């Protein structure tokens, strides 16, 4: 058994040293839109597109809802993020190893409301998940919480 594992490790090392490994499938995929109401847009590389159910969310995306909008996203580690109206949510970083459950998830709520159910990343490591607002950094030690942020003068 130990020998097979050694052989496998050697094979992986050889592959890593001798040539580029094939890119993992859907490397950029962080999650999928599961719920939308009203106006919801995803901004990627400066381009805004309306978000439909099933749309892919990537690290680097900014998800924005209109005055009548809300959106729910399920991430690959089973984290659930849902935003209410007039919200701007940036997915700053998402990395998840489905075998070891290690990686990191950082997002920023720039304005609006957000409900979070944390997933496998936060369960694996207490420092893996962070939610930022313009006023604070929230460290996630598991399960469910709510975030509202914004400038009340604008409301």
């Amino acid at each position, binding site marked *: *058994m130990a020998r097979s594992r050694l052989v496998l490790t050697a094979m992986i090392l050889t592959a890593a040293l001798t040539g580029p490994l094939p890119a993992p499938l859907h490397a950029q995929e962080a999650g999928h839109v*599961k719920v939308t109401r009203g106006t919801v847009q995803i901004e990627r590389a400066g381009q805004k597109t309306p978000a439909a159910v099933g749309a892919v969310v990537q690290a680097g995306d900014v998800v924005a809802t209109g005055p009548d909008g809300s959106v729910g996203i399920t991430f690959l580690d089973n984290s659930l993020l849902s935003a*209410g*109206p007039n919200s701007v949510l940036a997915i700053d970083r998402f990395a998840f190893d489905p075998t070891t459950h290690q990686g990191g998830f950082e997002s920023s709520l720039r304005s609006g409301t957000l409900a979070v159910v944390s997933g496998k990343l936060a369960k694996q490591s207490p420092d893996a998940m962070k939610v930022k607002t313009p*006023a604070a950094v929230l460290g996630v030690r598991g399960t469910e919480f*709510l*975030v509202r942020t914004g400038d009340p003068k604008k409301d």
Partner: protein
Amino acid sequence: MRRHAALAALALLLLVGCARPARDDLYVLMPGADGKTGALTVDSAGKQAVLDQPYAAVRVKEPGQVAAGTITEQEARQAFGAALAAQPDRPLSFTLYFLEARDELTPDSRQILGRIVDELSRRPAPEIVVIGHTDRVGAVPYNDALSLRRAERVRDELVKVGVAPDRIRVEGRGEREPLVPTPDEVPEPRNRRVEISIR
């Protein structure tokens, strides 16, 4: 005269500044759906707070001004109604068991397959991950192949009842992740399984 005007303007600015705080941030820890409540740490301009009770809440009017307290469930539902209503369905996982050395499900597990299909049909844009496992009877390469075959078998069953194949990801982990650890070459029915996660 000009100095008076400047002072008055300053006073007005201060007054307005005090009457309208810069922010109205609210962070709330909710009880978990499984009955367990986690914890949330808040760091605002170096001021820290830890929320570890259901409905524990922090308000931040200015960065560094952290006011801790609690709110009621009703207040939370009111302030976050739309965000909570947009929460996706909770991910679910199921475990199906196999007969020894075969890619055939036990009768009990056949029934669970039906429940999974029902659940999938309710979900928008469902994703399915199917991971096969074996016990430690047999060599590692044999079990790697068997675990993948079991996962593929479950995928085929799902496709047969109408699940789109491109929604299903299949993986085989062989004997590496036993549910019940055993010495090598020990038969263990609980390790001959396929785990299905849907979200």
